C-alpha cells in the first residue's frame, strides 16, 4: 500500500469535515422542512417542495451555477456581503459545506417526510387533547416515532455529502489543501496519472460508505 501524501490526508479529512457539517445543517434545516411539508398546508407548500427536491434531479453543475449566482462574489447575496465585509464564501471550505448541504437536502427531506407522514395522526391529536402544543407534540411524539426514518435520511445525506463533486467544484473550486475534497482529489489524481493515489482514495471512500451503511442498518431496527 502506497504511503499517503499530505494532500490525500488533508482531502480525506476535509471530506469528512464537510460531510459532517453538511449533515448537521441538514438536520437543523431539513427536519423542520420535512415536518412542515408533512403536516401543514400553507401557501407556497408546493413551491417549497419543488425547491428542496430540485437538486435531486438537476445536473449538479446547474445547482452549482445557481449557488454561484446566489453566493458568488458578485452574486445576489454574495455581493452585498462582500461589499460589507470584504469576505466571500466562494472558494472557501464553507462553500463546500453549502454545496454538499444543498445537494444532500432532498434525500433527507424526502426520507424524513415519509417517516413523519407515517406517524399515526391520532397520536398527535391525543397529545393535543392532553394539553401539549403542536411544537411540544412534534418534539415528544412525532419526531421520536419517526426516528428510524430520520436516522436513515441523515445517513443518506451524509453519504451524499461525502461524495459531492459537481456543485462543490463550481462554488468552492479545487484548491489543494483548502477546498479539495476526496472526490475532487480522485479526479485530479486520475487526470494527472497518479493511479495509486486514486485507487487508495477510492478504496477508502468505499470502505467508509460501507461502514456508515452497516452502522445505520444496526441502528435502525432497534428503534421503536
Amino acid at each position, binding site marked *: 500500500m502506497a504511503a499517503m501524501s499530505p494532500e490525500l490526508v488533508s482531502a480525506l479529512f476535509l471530506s469528512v469535515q464537510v460531510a459532517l457539517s453538511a449533515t448537521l445543517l441538514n438536520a437543523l434545516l431539513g427536519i423542520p422542512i420535512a415536518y412542515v411539508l408533512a403536516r401543514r398546508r400553507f401557501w407556497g407548500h408546493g413551491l417549497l417542495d419543488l425547491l428542496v427536491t430540485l437538486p435531486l434531479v438537476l445536473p449538479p453543475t446547474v445547482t452549482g451555477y445557481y449557488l454561484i449566482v446566489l453566493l458568488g462574489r458578485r452574486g445576489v447575496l454574495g455581493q452585498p456581503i462582500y461589499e460589507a465585509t470584504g469576505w466571500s464564501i466562494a472558494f472557501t471550505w464553507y462553500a463546500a459545506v453549502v454545496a454538499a448541504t444543498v445537494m444532500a437536502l432532498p434525500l433527507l427531506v424526502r426520507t424524513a417526510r415519509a417517516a413523519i407522514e407515517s406517524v399515526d395522526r*391520532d397520536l398527535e391529536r391525543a397529545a*393535543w387533547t392532553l394539553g401539549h402544543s403542536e411544537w411540544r407534540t412534534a418534539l415528544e411524539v412525532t419526531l421520536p*416515532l419517526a426516528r428510524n426514518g430520520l436516522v436513515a435520511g441523515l445517513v443518506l445525506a451524509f453519504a451524499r455529502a461525502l461524495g459531492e463533486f459537481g456543485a462543490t467544484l463550481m462554488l468552492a473550486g479545487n484548491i489543494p489543501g483548502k477546498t479539495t475534497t476526496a472526490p475532487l482529489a480522485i479526479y485530479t489524481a486520475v487526470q494527472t496519472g497518479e493511479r495509486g493515489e486514486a485507487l487508495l482514495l477510492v478504496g477508502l471512500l468505499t470502505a467508509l460508505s460501507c461502514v456508515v451503511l452497516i452502522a445505520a442498518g444496526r441502528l435502525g431496527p432497534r428503534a421503536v
Partner: protein
Amino acid sequence: MTAVLTPRLQVRLRKRLPKFDLDVEWRAGDGVAVLFGPSGAGKTVTLQCLAGLMRPDAGRVVVDGRVLFDADAGVSVPPQQRRVGYVFQGYALFPHLTVAGNVGFGLRHRPRAARQRRTEEVLTRLGIADLADRYPGALSGGQRQRVALGRALAPDPALLLLDEPLSALDLPLRRALRDELRTILAAWGTAAVVVTHDFTEAYRLGDRVVVYEDGRVIQEAPRAELLWQPASRAVARVMGLSNVLQGTVLKASPDRIQFRWRGQTLEAVNSPSRSYLPPPDSPLGFFVRPEYVRLIRKDRGADDPTHHMNVMMGRVVREIDFGTTWTLQIRLDEPGEPAQGDFDLEVEVPRLVYEILEIERDRRWRFSIHRGSIHVLPSS
C-alpha cells in the same frame, strides 16, 4: 322519563363534509351519552368537533356552562385548553412511552411530585399499577383500554369522549370489556360521550342515546325509551331491529290499535306517551322483537285466550344457530308475498326450548304475540 334539567353538554354543529353535511343538535346531562348510528353517519366528526380537532362551519358547544365553540361569537377554544379527554379508536397509546409515561402525559404542567402521585393514583384505581413500566406493545387489549382511559382521565377532564372504544377487540373480549368500561365510567362519574355503531353496546353503555343517520339526529332519548319506542321506522332500521313490518289500520283508540297484516287481524297496545290515532285504512309501521314471539306447545291442551292472543300459524323455512339461541324464520300459512323476502317473521328461541320442542324435526308451529309486544311505530 328522566328529564334533563341542567344539560351539562349542549351541542349544535353544522359542518360541510366531502360526502355529506353534518347538521346536528342534542344535549346530555350527567352520565354517559351514546352517539349511535351506522358508520359514516357523522359520529366521529362530532367527537372531533367537541374536542377541537376539527372546526365546524357553524354552531355552538357548551360544557358545564363553559363555551368551547361559538361560531357567531368567534369563539373556538384550542384542543389543548378544552379539558376534554379523548379515547381514540384503537386507543392511540404512545408506543415509545411506558404505561406510566402515557398516563402521566397530560400532567406535564404539574410539578414532578404531583404528577407522579396522580399517575400512581390513576393506575391503582384502574388496577394496572403493576404495568407501570411496560410498553403498550406488550399489553393485552383490555389492558390497553384501561391505559387509554387512564391517560384521558388523569388530567381530570370536564368531558370524556370515546370513539368506538371496543371496536379494536375481538368478540368474546368485547363483551367483557363493555361491562368493565361501563363500571369504570360509572365509578369516575365524568360526563362521557361514547360513539358506537353496535346497538347492544349503545344500550349497555348509554344512559341517553342519540341516534345518527346521514349527518342528522333522528332520535334522542333515554335508552329505555329508545328500545321500546323507536321514533320511526328509520330509527328501528338503524337500530338493526328485525321484524320491522307494515300493516293497515282497522281501528285506533288511545290504548289499543287493531290492524290487518298478512291476512291476520292483530291487536297492539297503543303507545301511551304519544296518543297516536291513525285513521282506518292508513298504513301502520310496527315491530316485534324476535325474542317476544311465543311458540305454542302442542302438548298443552286447549288455548287459553287470555294467554294466547294474536295467534298465527306458519312453517319454519330457515334456522340460524347463534349458540345460546336459535333464530327461526317463519312463513305464515297465507297466500301472497311474504313480508320479509321468503319469510314473514323472525323468532328467537333459547337453545333449550329448541331442543325440548324438537324444532329440528317439527317444522309447523302455532305461535302468538302478546299485544304489549307489538310496538307501533308512528310514521313521522
